[in-house]
């Protein structure tokens, strides 16, 4: 069947058709649509079809571990996350290569070069190499669809997890994808034969590490024979282009009749050394590495080329050091003239994103700003979510934003240093993702902090997914040990402004851990729910 699918949706459909039993994920742009697609599929499941577990997880670490547990029982599991989510999952991720897998386990990391919706542009391929896992990097939506099935097979054959790395333009671009009419059935449940490989005691772990090292030559052999890696000698073989993932598309866009240089297309790692050898043997004296993200392959190739062969790319300025590739930057790297184009219009001004009109975070920031202004030196530590936009006009409210959960623990650290008032602003979903442990630190240290959990009852920035702690935030905070008298709930509406400010003042002045929860449903999910109700 032919369908118009996002790259994310092609991955989801590929996994479903490969006999997936469970997807484990926390929402994060540009990976969210993979899990959402499977959830939609599951909501329309016919009675006799096999169910797929697809409920959102609390964070990427719990997701990775849940998937490893499903794999342990012999079933196929997939974990999806954005690139920085892999930092959160890293402990489980790296050690899953040490245990190996039972049922196929595929980890999808969606990188965001150009930082469209992220705080950095780290490249997940480093993690794959670090953990010594095979990595797949599709160049098209069709390839992504097919690769997922192959990744599960590879995972089961080599008994290792497989990392699939995509980037924003693959994840969020649609193309026509031909899907199978005969999906694979799910694996039957079957526990591992030998549990020793799953118990990473040093004595066992050493054996497992030796096996993992041994397995690398098999991974290389498979990479070299993969249909997704290919080498084509050019009419001018003195120059070799190494095109990784979707960089291959930008290359072909500029060479519709074929590239005159030798081209090595790479979509599976470890790097296919035998194909590289052929490129050198054909006389390549200059290699241009085109890759989305950081110069991972470019750095590796520097240590692999024969004497006298130059390696060029992002590190040497042929391509920009940062940001995603474009057809234009690749064109320039090929030494081609740019297309004729017009100048930018000087009337056009930037239009940054902003909190929605009617959003509860707005009322929260208004109250918080006004109360903070009554103190000499209030510091507000922000976090990851829609409310990070409080850094921009008109609020300019937050003084830091680093990663998921950092608001709570940075406010604590600042308070430890003597800062007062020291305030954290964190969303409900981010709080359950990574804020609870930090709050326990605050309680144990009796830190003088105010933790504002701006609760919109959803994971807003990624489009309104379920939030893990909805309806239980007060219980969670009190369970962690916050004095119930200092767990305060307010409704962020303009008419309640005086009351909200009074509550904030009281908690600023309380010497201890305070939690203030402004709670009002996200304006976007509210509209959606109203529409759904109207339908019914």
């Amino acid at each position, binding site marked *: 069947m*032919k369908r*118009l699918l*996002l790259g994310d949706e092609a991955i989801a459909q590929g996994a479903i058709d490969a006999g997936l039993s469970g997807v484990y994920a926390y929402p994060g*742009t*540009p990976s*969210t*649509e993979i899990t959402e697609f499977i959830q939609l599929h599951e909501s329309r499941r016919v009675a006799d079809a096999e169910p797929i577990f697809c409920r959102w997880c609390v964070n990427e670490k719990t997701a990775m571990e849940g998937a490893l547990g499903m794999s342990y029982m012999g079933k196929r599991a997939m974990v999806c996350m954005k690139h920085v989510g892999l930092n959160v999952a890293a402990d489980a991720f790296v050690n899953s290569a040490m245990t190996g897998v039972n049922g196929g386990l595929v980890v999808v990391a969606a990188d965001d070069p150009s930082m*469209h*919706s992220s705080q950095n542009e780290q490249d997940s391929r480093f993690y794959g190499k670090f953990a010594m896992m095979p990595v797949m990097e599709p160049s098209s939506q069709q390839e992504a669809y097919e690769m997922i099935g192959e990744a599960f097979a590879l995972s089961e054959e080599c008994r290792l997890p497989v990392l699939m790395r995509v980037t924003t*333009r*693959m994840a*969020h*671009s*649609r*193309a*026509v994808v031909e899907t199978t009419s005969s999906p694979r059935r799910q694996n039957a449940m079957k526990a591992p034969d030998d549990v020793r490989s799953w118990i990473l005691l040093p004595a066992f772990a050493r054996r497992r590490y030796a096996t993992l090292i041994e397995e690398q030559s098999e991974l290389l052999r498979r990479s070299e024979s993969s249909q997704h890696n290919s080498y084509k000698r050019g009419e001018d073989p003195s120059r070799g282009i190494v095109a990784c993932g*979707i960089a291959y*598309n*930008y*290359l*072909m*866009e500029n060479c*519709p009749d074929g590239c005159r240089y030798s081209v090595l297309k790479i979509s599976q790692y470890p790097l296919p050394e035998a194909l590289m050898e052929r490129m050198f043997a054909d006389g390549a004296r200059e290699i241009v590495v085109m890759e989305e993200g950081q110069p991972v392959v470019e750095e590796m190739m520097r240590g692999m080329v024969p004497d006298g062969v130059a390696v060029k790319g992002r590190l040497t300025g042929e391509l920009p050091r940062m940001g995603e590739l*474009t*057809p*234009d930057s690749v*064109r320039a790297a090929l030494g081609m003239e*740019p*297309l*004729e*184009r*017009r*100048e*930018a*219009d000087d*009337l*056009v*001004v*930037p*239009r*940054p*994103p*902003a*909190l*929605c009109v009617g959003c509860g975070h707005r009322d929260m920031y208004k109250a918080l700003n006004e109360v903070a202004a009554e103190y000499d030196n209030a510091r507000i530590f922000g976090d990851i979510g*829609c409310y990070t*936009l409080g850094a921009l*006009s008109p609020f300019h409210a937050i003084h830091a934003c680093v990663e998921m959960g950092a608001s709570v623990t940075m406010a604590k650290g600042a308070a430890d240093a003597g800062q007062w008032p020291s305030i954290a602003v964190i969303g409900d979903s981010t709080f359950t993702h990574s804020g609870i442990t930090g709050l326990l630190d605050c309680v144990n240290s009796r830190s003088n902090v105010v933790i504002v959990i701006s609760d919109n009852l959803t994971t807003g*920035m*990624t*489009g309104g997914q379920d939030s893990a702690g909805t309806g239980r935030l007060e219980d969670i905070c009190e369970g962690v040990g916050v004095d119930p008298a200092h767990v305060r709930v307010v409704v962020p509406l303009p008419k309640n402004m005086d009351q909200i400010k009074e509550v904030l003042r009281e908690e600023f002045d309380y010497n201890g851990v305070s939690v203030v929860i402004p709670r009002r449903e996200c304006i976007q999910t509210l509209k959606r729910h109203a529409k759904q109700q109207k339908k019914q």
Partner: protein
Amino acid sequence: MKKDIILAGVGGQGILSIATVIGEAAMAEGLYIKQAEVHGMSQRGGDVQSNLRIASQPIASDLIPLGGADIIISLEPMEALRYLPYLKPEGWIVTSSVPFVNIDNYPDMTDLTAHLDRLANRVVLDVEALAREAGAPAQAANMVLLGAAVPMLDIELEKIEAGICRIFARKGEEITAKNIAALRAGYDNSKK
């Protein structure tokens, strides 16, 4: 056949529904499609665009090169101008004339109109007024805009209409009819 289209607007305006209709019609024609979208943070009232490429031959890149777009279809006049460097010298701009002002330093409308008027190949329409005149709600303004772009698409009006019928089928005949009326209003007021 090969058309590279930049869809532009402000997050929340609904540029993707235009892409969905063109994509549906192009699929039915057996054409190749690539459509890069913007999801995530920028959707919150920021500038958004989508690169839509349709062709009878396979398409390599998800992104349109600078100077490579045949048409810019924009739901907002300043957003139409934002992507000028992507437009081919002979390319067309089809845009709504109604500004979406959610920033303090939005340019002067007279200047903006003058800049649009400098372009030879342009269609500038009050798509919201045309939607109302056609008896359609303001949400159908994007279908008016699409109708105005149809002459530049190399896909027949009937094929686009059939696409709308399939997409809106679930929402009932009345909504489908209003969207088609909006599409035709745009088509009739286009000028190529």
